[in-house]
């Protein structure tokens, strides 16, 4: 190979992947490490990378303590019920008590946040959401990270973490390649903050052909957060907790502003309310602790997102689809109509394109909704990710090992999708987690924890060979055939992705099987995955762009394998509407009121699974309305 090896040495903090989490880390690291060397490696361009590349029309996590709106524990309670109890409440509380300071800085940097003209407070979309003109959210935040970083390596895809050869289970940097030049990049670093993304496109998408890119989460979210950390032997948590989204059909345009601000609502094909009739049976599956419609109607307590999906899925299966969003009332108000369109243009332009193409004017027609294929990520209404230490003043012993947001690999920190058990962080919470991780990483270095790191030439050479192998495989196998993509010696990344999506869909509970799986299906799926893993050793890339896709696929594969293992382990249906274990259709608090934790042995590839205790914040946390209802026997 003619590619150069470019070594960046003596880095203190390497940010691997700079979406909202990574930019938060780079920004904050400069304050606590004013003389430290901070470097960003990002596979795209940090001005438009990560899930917020397109922009956002709302910041979904803002307490509003300055306006007397919410306390951190209110947010914890909300996230807890929405995730059916499965939340790392120490991490959630910690994120929530800091998140407002991130948002106030965004405003200082020029992000337009809308104000309620009557109260002067930020304009609320819902209890947690504030409305912004966020087309340039990412470039504005990236600017702050650029000011803080010593160097930004755009277009460098990080493929592996480097490990210390002197001390077991300690990180030593990362390696990857430049997707333009093809050069091999070695980053030797005392700490790494993994800010890489969650996973779209691991389950077969509803769209076919060209539209396969119109996924809910960005198509460039390749599960690299998990691929990198799993491969390094970091423990993961809640990887079974994939998310399914109820969204506008095909375009997957967001519904939050529609429900909360425009007060639109859903109905079945006959114009009937359908949700409540599924609740009695659903209550028998999950228990009144998790679904108490009366409590939800009279208090702030939400009906969990997954359970609302469950009602849609069942109503459609009963033959009364499609589900419509009733927009025709709200859109008669020209102001609300404009907000409805701006909402798409600010974060999902494709939905506006689709409605323009299909002449859907929501003023005169109620658009269709659908439930999406599942996604694996850790910052929306789900909490997949690494098992991380919490903050010293909040976390119990089982959740604390010295440094906030540090994974079980020493010196490896996480932010955003990378951190498990912290749903409902969204953009602002991910940025906040990056800040927390960066401060802790600086302290880790100053405490002398990164002394004596050694990276052998052999490790660097071994990774280089591994990274470019798909190009080699192509070169060797290509000339055996006349032309085309069918070759007995290799598969290309697209062919591999198609196979992965089909397996995940059919065996792990995708939309094609109505989100249903069981012990037998998962076991068959894992066997097929093992063989697929062998084929991935023979993946071929015809050029550097395909090499990027090959490595994204390998990260998606490691993510998917973990999802399979976790789903098999948790023998219950904890989140009906996200997925169902057909062999255990009930929620089972007696055995499964726990967090699932896995580790893949980097040497053997073997998985070990364990249950971790679940801690809840208790005390002065209930709202008064809920306390009254509880006194009357509700939950």
């Amino acid at each position, binding site marked *: 190979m003619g590619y150069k090896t470019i070594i960046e040495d003596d880095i203190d903090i390497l940010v691997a992947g700079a979406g909202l989490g990574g930019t938060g880390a780079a920004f*904050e690291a*400069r*304050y606590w490490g004013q003389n430290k060397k901070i470097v960003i490696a990002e*596979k*795209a*361009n940090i001005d*438009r990378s*990560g899930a917020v*590349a*397109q922009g956002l029309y709302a910041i979904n996590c803002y307490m509003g*303590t*300055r306006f007397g709106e919410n306390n*951190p*524990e209110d947010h914890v309670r909300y996230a807890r019920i929405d995730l059916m109890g499965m939340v790392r409440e120490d991490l959630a*509380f*910690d994120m929530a*008590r*800091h998140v*407002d300071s991130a948002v*106030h800085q965004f405003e200082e940097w*020029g*992000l*337009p946040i809308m104000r309620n003209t009557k109260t002067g407070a930020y304009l609320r979309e819902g209890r947690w959401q504030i409305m912004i*003109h966020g*087309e340039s959210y990412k470039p504005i935040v990236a*600017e702050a990270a650029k*000011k*803080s970083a010593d160097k930004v390596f755009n277009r460098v895809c990080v493929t592996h973490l480097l490990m210390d050869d002197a001390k077991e289970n300690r990180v030593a940097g990362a390696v990857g390649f430049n997707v333009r030049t093809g050069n091999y990049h070695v980053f030797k670093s005392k700490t790494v903050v993994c800010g890489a993304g969650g996973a779209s496109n691991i389950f077969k998408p509803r*769209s076919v052909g*060209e*539209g396969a*890119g119109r996924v809910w989460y*960005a*198509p460039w979210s390749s599960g690299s957060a998990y691929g990198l950390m799993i491969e390094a032997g970091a423990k993961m948590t809640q990887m079974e907790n994939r998310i399914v989204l109820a969204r506008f059909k095909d375009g997957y345009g967001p519904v939050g502003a529609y429900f909360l601000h425009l007060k639109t609502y859903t109905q079945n094909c006959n114009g009937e309310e359908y949700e409540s009739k599924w609740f009695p049976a659903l209550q028998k599956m999950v228990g009144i602790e998790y679904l108490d419609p009366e409590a939800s109607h009279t208090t702030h307590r939400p009906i969990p997102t997954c359970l609302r999906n469950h009602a849609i899925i069942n109503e459609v299966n009963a033959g009364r689809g499609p589900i419509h969003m009733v927009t025709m009332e709200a859109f008669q108000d020209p102001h609300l109509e404009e907000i409805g*369109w*701006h909402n798409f*243009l*600010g974060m999902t*332009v*494709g939905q*506006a394109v*689709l409605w323009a*193409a*299909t*002449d859907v*004017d929501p003023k005169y027609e109620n658009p269709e909704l659908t439930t999406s294929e599942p996604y694996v990520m850790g910052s929306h209404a789900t909490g997949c990710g690494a098992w991380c230490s919490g903050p*010293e*003043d*909040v976390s119990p012993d089982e959740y604390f090992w010295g440094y906030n947001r540090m994974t079980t690999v020493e010196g490896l920190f996480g932010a955003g999708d990378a951190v498990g058990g912290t749903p409902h962080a969204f953009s602002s919470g991910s940025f906040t987690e990056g800040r927390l991780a960066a*401060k802790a990483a600086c302290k880790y270095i*100053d405490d002398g924890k990164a002394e004596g790191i050694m990276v052998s030439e052999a490790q660097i050479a071994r990774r280089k060979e591994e990274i470019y192998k798909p190009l080699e495989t192509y070169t060797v196998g290509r000339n055996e055939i006349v032309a085309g993509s069918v070759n007995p010696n290799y598969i290309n990344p697209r062919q591999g992705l198609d196979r992965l999506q089909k397996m995940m869909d059919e065996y792990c509970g995708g939309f094609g099987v109505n989100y249903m799986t069981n012990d037998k299906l998962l076991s068959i799926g894992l066997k097929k995955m093992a063989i697929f893993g062998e084929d991935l050793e023979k993946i071929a890339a015809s050029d550097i*762009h395909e090499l990027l896709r090959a490595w994204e696929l390998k990260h998606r594969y490691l993510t998917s394998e973990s999802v399979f293992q976790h789903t098999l382990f948790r023998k219950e249906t904890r989140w009906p509407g996200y997925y169902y274990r057909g062999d255990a259709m009930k929620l089972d*608090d007696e055995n499964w009121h726990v967090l699932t934790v896995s580790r893949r042995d980097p040497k053997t590839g073997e998985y070990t699974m364990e249950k971790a205790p*679940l*801690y*809840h*914040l*208790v*005390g*002065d946390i209930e709202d008064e309305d809920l306390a009254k209802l509880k006194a009357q026997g509700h939950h």
Partner: protein
Amino acid sequence: MPTFVYMTRCDGCGQCVDICPSDIMHIDKTLRRAYNIEPNMCWECYSCVKACPHNAIDVRGYADFAPLGHSVRVNRDEEKGTIAWRIKFRNGKKDMDLLAPITTKPWGSGHYDLASVPAPAKDTVNTELLYNEPKYVAMNDNALMTLESNGLEIKEGVYY
């Protein structure tokens, strides 16, 4: 398709190549102009459309569900701090102009360099405070919230 590039407008400057989050805008080696090499990995995020100095890039909705004959065009202006959209329906019955701010300040002027702000006081390293905290949390002098300050405990088990 997501995005496509008009032959007569593109001069091959590469702004779209530089910004595309999905690495799918590439320069055709023969024609020396940009094109979308992998439409099924395009999110229609419009990053390239906004970045193109010649308005050479447009979007045609995904072929598997979007009929032809629509248009969603955009003009993002950092100097004015605005983004202007025009949406045209296939049937011609709707034609909307929508304008939104993208920043409240001259581009980049609100940012600061944390290497040159006063260094954190030594004891704050061992606290839970981040830069500008506790002030920036509630924009007052209140301390950062803790379990103790909020009357909370963290306990193992099932509590609802």
